[in-house]
């Protein structure tokens, strides 16, 4: 059926591209989640009146986060070419897209994590201190669990940006639906390919949003 409606669509290539999009999104998401939480925790803990209050570190982390958030993603990929080449050994394909995707998305997510942590009731942190909790315990048993719904909705928003980023990365040869749509659809003037890819990207976005909302709601016992 697909072939009849969209004569130019190569089903096997198309599924491959979809798979690559998922692959890049999910791996980049995992990396973004970890690095973003680290950045967010650093921002939160070193802020004024934080547990590790440290003006200097806070300023450095904030500066890094702001700089990487300010660089347009397409330029970030180009800037990272040498780094990617060094790390992955190539600048083409889904794996080569990962460093740029993570470095592009993690600072953004880091800010969302910081906001989520700021929303945690100060009294609860104080109660944990009064019980004699270590900082490690406060982070892993209080701050992260108490902010989990916000962390999940944050990562959902980030995931959707990431899907967009993968499509952009595709344009310079990262693979995935963006790559497929650009090279096979746009360049060859086969717009049915562009159309199907767009629809699929939209569907993927919806799926991520749905899963994110569902988990976030399930975790929220407030």
């Amino acid at each position: 059926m697909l072939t009849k409606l969209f004569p130019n669509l190569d089903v096997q290539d198309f599924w491959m591209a979809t798979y690559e999009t998922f692959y890049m999104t999910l791996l980049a998401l995992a990396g973004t989640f970890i690095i973003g939480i680290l950045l967010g925790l650093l921002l939160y803990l070193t802020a004024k009146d934080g547990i590790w209050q440290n003006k200097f570190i806070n300023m450095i982390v904030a500066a890094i986060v702001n700089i990487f958030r300010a660089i347009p993603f397409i330029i970030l990929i180009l800037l990272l070419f040498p780094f990617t080449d060094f790390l992955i050994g190539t600048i083409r394909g889904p794996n080569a897209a990962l460093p740029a995707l993570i470095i592009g998305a993690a600072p953004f997510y880091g800010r969302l994590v910081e906001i989520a942590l700021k929303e945690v009731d100060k009294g609860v942190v104080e109660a944990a201190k009064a019980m004699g909790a270590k900082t490690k315990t406060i982070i892993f048993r209080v701050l992260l669990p108490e902010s989990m719904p916000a962390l999940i909705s944050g990562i959902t928003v980030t995931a959707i940006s990431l899907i967009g980023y993968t499509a952009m990365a595709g344009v310079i040869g990262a693979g995935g639906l963006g790559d497929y749509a650009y090279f096979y659809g746009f360049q060859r003037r086969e717009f049915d390919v562009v159309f199907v890819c767009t629809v699929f990207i939209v569907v993927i976005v919806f799926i991520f949003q749905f899963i994110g909302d569902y988990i976030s709601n399930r975790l929220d016992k407030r």
Partner: protein
Amino acid sequence: MISIEGLSKIFTSNKRQITAVDDLTLEIKEGDIFGVIGYSGAGKSTFVRLLNRLEEPSFGRIVIDEQEITSLNSNQLRLARQEIGMIFQHFNLLWSRTVKDNIAFPLEIAGVPKAERDKRVRELIDLVGLTERENAYPSQLSGGQKQRVGIARALANNPKVLLCDEATSALDPETTNSILDLLVDINQKLGLTIILITHEMHVIRKICKQVAVMENGRIVEQGDVLDVFLRPKQQVTKKFVEQVMGTNDEDEGVNHLINTYDRGKLIRLHFIGETTNQALISEVAKKYEIDINILQGKITQTQAGAYGTLFVQIDGEAGEIDNAIDFITKTSVEVEVIRDAN
């Protein structure tokens, strides 16, 4: 049990220094329920947070159970804090954990093994009367129930001291009473020393043995709850006593009484805390050939017994009235004759 010497806390904000707690010296005995009362801004909340160093003291010394809190390093302080329970005005429970898991949290912190933890949590849930609510989340509980969880959590590691920072201020009067009853109960059962911060004299009256009144970071008056009720010296203390006893416009009232009741003797009885005289009036009426008419008064119950004043009119033969008054004088109730028989 707890001794505090020269404790001060100075906050610096915008280059201005604010002395929240000013050179405070205090002894608290083991097993006491010690109340600190003051209006907001008096420094009482800062004071209680200095005791477990949630605020770092600027100067002074705190010794709790022979351990000098103010000289501990951060690791020692963590361990010491495990033996100081604390409850809060807004409960400060983790919403992501059930009742059971909230109570288990301090035990997790103290490294108690799982099986033992479960056992202890069950005991605590029974102690605070939350049986069958152990799997509920805090959002499903009422304010009073939340504070019960807070109390159970504070007691988990068998602390020697319980700090209560405005623990009943967010609760309605009825729930406040049930929480106060629970505090008295655990004070008696476990011999726990309780330090309680409040702005409600009612709370002090109901459960405290000792009270300190704070104003501008200093303790302006301190002593047995009854003494403070009976002889408030400072203006601020008088105001707090009025919260419970009503305003003291007695002089006007007395004149009115003298004018209205022109027969017999008018006397004022001061009840100051002996519980043995509860049936005093009926006893006197039975023993002597007199009529007693209760005109006006207010008696309230404190931890040390009844406190208050009662205006009565005693009518009968002069000799009999004097005998009755002699009898009352021999009890702990003080008698003051306002007007002799005409």
